[in-house]
């Protein structure tokens, strides 16, 4: 079976507001960049287009009807995956791997600024009989955060350090609108939302669109000098019941990474990667995810943060892009946004300190209140 590579990436938006363009125009801009990057013409060179979005975030039912034109996919094979962008990437990977086609475009976007009732959309995802009367997105998160921190004996300063690190990492990334120099104290003095969750822990909403072009090995070698290979993929869902979860660990991240490691032949994840992009929502999620990925353990995760092992210039940079904390929450696009960041970094177009990086992992979580996520292993 052929190997699969990412041969082009494009992006647009990445801002709190994008009033100057419709979601279609944002997709057109991002996909045009990706096709230029890959050196392809979407009207003749692409076998399949995949768009990742969710009707309730779009405000349009059966929203996949509205995506082909601006991707160059008019009257072509187009489908929508109603999930995080990483799941769309994995679907594209499978289409190429199975020999169905040799070039696939995967797109995902957020126009969160257009959703005036974001809380209502999230509330619609809660279990309606037992849990919905009591939950908001923030309480669902805070319940897990409390238990995780209790089990690991973490003080408030540890998640705050993660937030401060990722805010700072973003300053080196021209695409990260929420980057900042923010001290741990500033995080800890930000308003309490629901204990132990503070405002500064919560990723701010952003608009944005990410596009990747995937190709078979044969096509990739003809089209580009620097293909980024997808070596392993995995996806996994834990229980939907908030009240039935093991809050001490991210079961979905553990499951999806095991699947991806097996495929890629990764036996020692702690030593395999030059950098990692994980979902870093609320600070503590970064730690919970790193444990689930087998990169750190519950015994050494706290120390790793304290001594700066995961800093940009540490031995294992985590979220060199600035993560969701700096890039913003782009709902279903979050996973694909990080793939674009990882690809650019592997091609030497990311942080200077990571030039020469060869192995990367991208992990995504579908956001509150889900317990679903995916992992992709990339290599140059």
């Amino acid at each position, binding site marked *: 079976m052929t190997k699969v590579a990412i041969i082009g990436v494009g992006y647009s938006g990445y801002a709190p507001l994008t009033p100057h363009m419709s979601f279609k125009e944002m997709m057109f801009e991002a996909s045009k960049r990706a*096709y230029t990057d890959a050196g392809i013409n979407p009207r003749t060179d692409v076998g399949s287009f995949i768009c990742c979005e969710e009707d309730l975030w779009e*405000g349009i039912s059966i929203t996949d009807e509205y995506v082909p034109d601006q991707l160059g996919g*008019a009257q072509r094979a187009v489908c929508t995956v109603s999930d995080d962008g990483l799941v769309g990437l994995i679907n594209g990977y499978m289409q190429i791997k199975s020999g169905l086609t040799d070039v696939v475009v995967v797109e995902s976007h957020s126009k969160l600024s257009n959703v005036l*009732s974001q809380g*209502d959309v999230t509330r619609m995802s809660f279990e309606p009989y037992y849990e919905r009367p009591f939950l908001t997105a923030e309480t669902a998160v805070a319940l897990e955060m409390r238990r995780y921190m209790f089990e690991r004996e973490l003080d408030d300063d540890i998640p705050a350090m993660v937030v401060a690190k990722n805010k700072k990492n973003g300053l080196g990334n021209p695409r990260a609108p929420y980057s900042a120099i923010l001290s741990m104290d500033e995080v800890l003095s930000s308003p309490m939302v629901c204990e132990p969750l503070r405002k500064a822990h919560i990723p701010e909403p952003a608009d944005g669109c990410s596009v990747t072009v995937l190709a078979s090995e044969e096509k990739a070698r003809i089209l580009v000098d620097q293909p980024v290979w997808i070596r392993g993929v995995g996806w996994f869902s834990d229980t939907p019941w908030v009240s039935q979860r093991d809050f001490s660990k991210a079961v979905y991240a553990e499951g999806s990474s095991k699947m991806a490691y097996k495929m890629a032949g990764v036996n020692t994840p702690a030593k395999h990667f030059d950098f990692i992009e994980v979902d870093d929502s609320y600070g503590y999620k970064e730690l919970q995810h790193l444990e689930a990925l087998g990169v750190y353990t519950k015994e050494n995760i706290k120390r790793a943060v304290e001594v700066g092992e995961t800093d940009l210039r540490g031995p294992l940079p985590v979220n060199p892009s600035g993560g969701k904390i700096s890039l913003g929450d782009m709902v279903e696009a979050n996973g694909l946004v990080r793939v674009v960041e990882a690809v650019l970094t592997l091609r030497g177009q990311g942080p200077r300190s990571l030039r020469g990086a060869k192995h990367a992992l991208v992990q995504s979580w579908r956001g509150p209140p889900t317990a679903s996520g995916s992992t992709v292993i990339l290599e140059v």
Partner: protein
Amino acid sequence: MESKKTLPGTPITGAEWENEVYSFRKHSVQLRYAWDAGSAVSGFLEGLKEGRILGRRCNRCMRVLVPPRAFCERCFRSTDEWVEVKDTGKINTYSVSYVNNDASRRDKPLIVAVIEIDGASPGMGFLHVLGEVEPSKVHVDMKVKAVWKPRDERVGAITDIKYFKPLEV
């Protein structure tokens, strides 16, 4: 067709449903959105406010796209310029509707039509309604013209055109 009485199962009456005899849980939401119209749609809506119908031309395939788009979906490139088209056209297809969205009967039938706008490329145009015409007189390929709301009532919406009426010849 089989009579209702012979079908198996336990019927549920409207009264049982209304009195919540069966277990269910209600949840209602108010979903609110405000979509950024973007450059192409904004230009079109601004044009309507001025009583003009605008399209965008793609200088590669030379089509005039109505309603306008920022990009040509055939050539996959940005469109090149604004073009004012006429407020006349011909009926591609139409339907005389006797029911509302909730299936209630209308007092007066609504004639919905797809109108190919003069000056746009063949097959290009938009949906609207017809007025000043008896349903029985409407036909495919009928020539029609926009009837605009007065200028001070126009807000930059497709409904700034009240309806299309048969073009007097």
